[in-house]
């Protein structure tokens, strides 16, 4: 092997999306296998495992996140069409959704505001800086909306993005156990809770467990994005 050849290979791998894409898919596949091996233990959430493995790998190898994302963005791009596709489970469950519409809108609106309020209350209790507190308020909303809200109420959008994703992973991993603990057994209510508090990552989990829960979770995620985006900046100004 000539050293020039090795350098050439490295340059190729760093420039093309192939390596980052392969790593993302392989790690996801491993995370799914691990979840199966651990018999679906709540903490064996595949998103959590995969993110931890890749993040650890990038840090250990000293690879810049932006270099990784340049390749992995093709997976990231599919989030848009996948969000649109949430209309399909919603449509399949439409008869059930229509009969539960009033309860769904009320519980998502209240649940979304509760999520913001408890985040702010806990942060104030722990003596967090005002910009950190504002970054924690839109925690339960899907990332792009949450970043927009954070900007309007004086938070740090980048911190919000990280907090939103962590909240989604926590909700997806521990949410179902929490719902068992407080004896919420109705699949519609379980879906609404996951979508309201843990947005898309919670919805991903709900979809793998039960189609009704998945449909209601997708609905809750969309509704919460709308209501929190409209109400939170307004309330922030009134109470701040």
């Amino acid at each position, binding site marked *: 092997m000539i050293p020039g050849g090795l350098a050439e290979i490295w340059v190729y791998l760093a420039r093309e999306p192939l390596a980052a894409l392969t790593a993302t898919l392989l790690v996801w596949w491993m995370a799914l296998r691990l979840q199966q091996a651990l018999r679906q233990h709540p903490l064996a959430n595949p998103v959590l495992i995969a993110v931890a493995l890749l993040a650890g790998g990038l840090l250990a190898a000293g690879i810049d996140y932006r270099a990784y994302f340049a390749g992995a963005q093709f997976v990231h791009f599919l989030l848009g069409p996948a969000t649109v596709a949430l209309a399909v489970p919603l449509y399949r469950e439409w008869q059930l959704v229509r009969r539960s519409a009033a309860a769904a809108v009320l519980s998502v609106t209240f649940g979304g505001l509760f999520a913001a309020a*408890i985040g702010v209350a806990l942060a104030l209790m*722990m003596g967090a800086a005002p910009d950190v507190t504002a970054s924690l308020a839109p925690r339960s909303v899907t990332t792009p909306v949450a970043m927009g809200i954070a900007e309007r109420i004086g938070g740090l959008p980048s911190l919000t993005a990280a907090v939103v994703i962590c909240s989604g992973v926590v909700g997806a991993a521990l949410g179902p156990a*929490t719902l068992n603990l407080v004896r*919420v057994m109705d699949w519609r209510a379980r879906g609404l809770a996951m979508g*309201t508090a843990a947005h898309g990552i919670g919805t991903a989990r709900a979809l793998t467990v039960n189609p009704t829960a998945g449909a209601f979770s997708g609905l809750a995620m969309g509704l919460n994005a709308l209501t929190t985006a409209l109400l939170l900046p307004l309330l922030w100004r009134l109470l701040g």
Partner: protein
Amino acid sequence: MIGALATLLLCQLAGEIAARGLGLPVPGPVIGMVLLFVALLLRRERDTPQALGRVADGLLGNLGLLFIPAGVGVILYLPLLARDWAPISLAIVLGTLASIAVTGRLAQSLLRHLGQ
């Protein structure tokens, strides 16, 4: 399959244009979801088109995978997260789980009382 993918992208595109053009506070894909849903409701047949159902199931069956590239981005914010780790981790863990419990309980009792 191509038709179904094109439908999803078209709805997203229309959603992105509507979000920016009308200054809506909701992201384009969420508006696209509403558009696709309305389009499905307006059709004469009740069943979901087969190709669309397959593509949607394929994407949503691996929805978690699609969050990984953005999720790994948390490493960019490690210093920021470390600076205020106590309030942040409390809000994330306790705040999220309390929100799930409260929303779930509320939804369950509302579903029971507001009719089936």
